[in-house]
Structures are given as C-alpha cells and as structure tokens.
C-alpha cells in the first residue's frame, strides 16, 4: 500500500516499460515540475520513479471515485487503485472524469478520459491540466 507523504516519491516495482524520472519539488503552496528526460539505467534493473500528485488531489479523486462507484466510505483506496479492480466500466470512468472536470474546473480530452485507469493517473492528469490553464 502506497503511503502518501510529504517527500512525494513513490517507487514502483521494476518495470520495463518506462524509464523516465520526474521530480516534483514540494513547496507549501505550489509545486514545480521538472522533467529529466529519459534515464537509462546501466543495470538490468530499471526503476520507474513517479511522483505522486498532491495528496489533496488524490484524496479528492478518491472521494469522487467512491461516490461514483457507490463504494462504502471505509473502502481503502490508494493512488494505485485501478478503476477496473473496483468494478468500474467505461461508463463509470467517463462519469468519474466528468465529475473531476466539474470539481477542478478543467476540460479533459475524450481520448484521455477513456485511458485513465488508476486514481494516480487521474490525479496526475488533473494537476497537469490545472497547471496548464491560462490565468483567468
């Protein structure tokens, strides 16, 4: 079970898929995203290091997911929780995305909406879109 802490790094099990590393510097009221580009490990073991979105974002996403899927309030959800493992089908996923759009005042492309599979992915997408929004 992933623990969300202020250090904001979460390590996944070795994965051959992606070797990019992102580092998010956490400051009290804002965050900055730095991408280091591709990182090739010299060892055969490759780590995918991804940084969790803000804990508050993950929590808000979890709340919306629980509501949409009618999960009990004490269902333990983590950032890694997969929508499909919770019983969500494509209609649920789209409804979750619509609720997230309303909550965070963002607009998600349909292709992105259908491709979200975990709470983490939803939170990351939200923070990405929020950050990109032009100043009102």
């Amino acid at each position, binding site marked *: 079970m992933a623990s969300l802490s202020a250090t904001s790094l979460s390590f996944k099990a070795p994965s051959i898929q992606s070797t990019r590393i992102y580092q998010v510097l956490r400051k009290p009221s804002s965050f900055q995203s730095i991408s280091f580009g591709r990182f090739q490990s010299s060892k055969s073991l490759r780590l995918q290091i991804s940084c969790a979105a803000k804990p508050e974002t993950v929590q808000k996403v979890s709340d919306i997911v629980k*509501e*949409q899927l009618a999960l009990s309030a004490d*269902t333990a959800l983590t950032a890694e*929780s*997969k929508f499909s*493992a*919770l*019983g969500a*089908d*494509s*209609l649920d996923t*789209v*409804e979750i995305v*619509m*609720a997230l759009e309303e909550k965070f005042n963002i607009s998600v492309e*349909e*292709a992105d909406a*259908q*491709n979200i599979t975990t709470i983490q992915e939803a939170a990351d997408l939200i923070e990405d879109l929020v950050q990109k929004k032009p100043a009102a």
Partner: protein
Amino acid sequence: MRTSVMSQMQRSFSIDLPSLIPLQLPSRRETHLWYILPDEVKSTSLLKRYSQFLSPIEKDRVDQMRGDELKKNALLARTLVRTTIARYQTNKAVDPGSLMFKKNMYGKPEVDWQNCKNYNVQPLHFNISHTDSLIACGVTVHAPVGIDVEDKERKIKHDVLAFAKRFYTTDEVNFLATILDPEAQRKEFIKLWTLKEAYVKALGKGFSAAPFNTFTIQSKPGTEGGYSLCKTSEVTANPLEKTEECNGRWKFDLLELAGSHYAAVCTEDDQADEGAPMRVIVRKTIPFVEDQLISERIFL
C-alpha cells in the same frame, strides 16, 4: 431447449467435469451471443474448478479485483470466453485452459492460435462485456464483433443531456432532447451508449480511433432494434453542409437480456451475401452445466 448435463455432479464435494459439448461455428452472417448470470452460479466447487482454466495472468487479475463478487465475476468472464471458444473445436476435445490470448496493436484481445496447443485455427472473433449481474460473450466468424451490455436500470449521475452534449453528436443530442420523460430519456441514452461502445469495440482500434462525437447511431425506421451508423464529417462548420457518410458496412442489433439488460451487438457486414439478413442467436449458459437457447433474431 435446455441441455442439463451434470446436475447430479453438483452434489459431490470435489467435482470432475464432463467434456464440453461441442458447438457449430456461427455462419458468416450470424453472431452467437452467450451470457452468464453470476447469481445462478453458486457452487464453490464449480467455481474452483473454473479457476483451474485460468492463466497465471488471469488469476492475478481476478485476485486484484476488490471484493468477492467482483472476483467471482472476473473469474466467470474468463471462464465464459475460454469454454465457449473451446467448444467450437468440434473435431476433438480440447482443454479450455490451453487457449492463449494476445492483444492486437490497439489492445483488443484475440485468440493467439499459433500458441494454442492442440487447437485448430479458426477465423473466429469474440468480444466480451459485463456488468455486476451479467457477463456476455459474442462470437462471429470472418468479421470482427463488438458487444456491450448495460443494466437497464443503471442510473446516470449527471444530467443526461449535459452528458450527451459532452460526448455524443448533435444529432444524438437532438434525438434525446425530444424525449420528455426523464426515465425514457435515460433509457435511450443507455441504449445509445451500448451501441456506440459496441461499435468502437468491433472496430478494435481503441477509443481514440472513433471518438463518440464523430459518429451518430440512429434507429432504422421500420425495424425492431435495428440501427445504422453515420459518420459526421469533422470539417464542416456550417450545419447545412454537414456531410454524413451513412453506410451499411456496420450492422447493429440492440436486444434485451434476462429482462434486465440492454445488449448491443455490432459486426461488420462483409457483403459477400448482399442483402441477406444477419442473425443473432442468444444463449444463456453455465459452463459445463447447461445451455439454454433464448432467442434467434434476424436483424438487418
């Protein structure tokens, strides 16, 4: 027509399964639609026996499901696919557990015939869909198939028209807007959802290949459950110039299953037999236990 094979076996504690009853492949213009009602499968020993057919990856996925009901349904879904496909091998008895699957380059699952031990290669296509209370599998030959099932009573949390405006085409929104009763409107929304999902799944190229707002599905007048597909041109700003390519290449049927679900079936008409009607044969099943023929429908 009901074929019950092993009712006496269910009484024994550890069960040995009889051979699967073979099936004739669908003809070119047929879709076989199989479904399981999870509530009807109660025997834990039967479920345990089913789990022995699953690959390690499938078992992992079942274990990842949160809660016993979701685990059971995931198990039944894989069992339905494996046992159904195995039954179409009529020349010999094959082990549903030795079927191998792969994904096409867009992620659509298909049979990996080359790696299946003892299986004869067949031009068989399948697609599955499930809800909390029903699991369905469609099978065709020569033409890809997509199916989607939804609970008729499924509530939409958002305003139906707002949802449609966001994701559907203008024509579809206009159609839904003409339905004044909210319940009836919700039902039509769900029907459209299943039809659109079935098309995208039949196409097999992922959701980005056919965003929901780029094609309209509308009912065919004079048919019961018949629908046609029209693609909207993305280029036109002037609604009067809107070009729609409505072709008969993709066939749709919308049916009700078990009194509780809408099921949309979409398959490609290879037009080898121009004008000949297409059929859907619906059967309810409990693998190794019984089949029940539900209906044979003709759709255009």
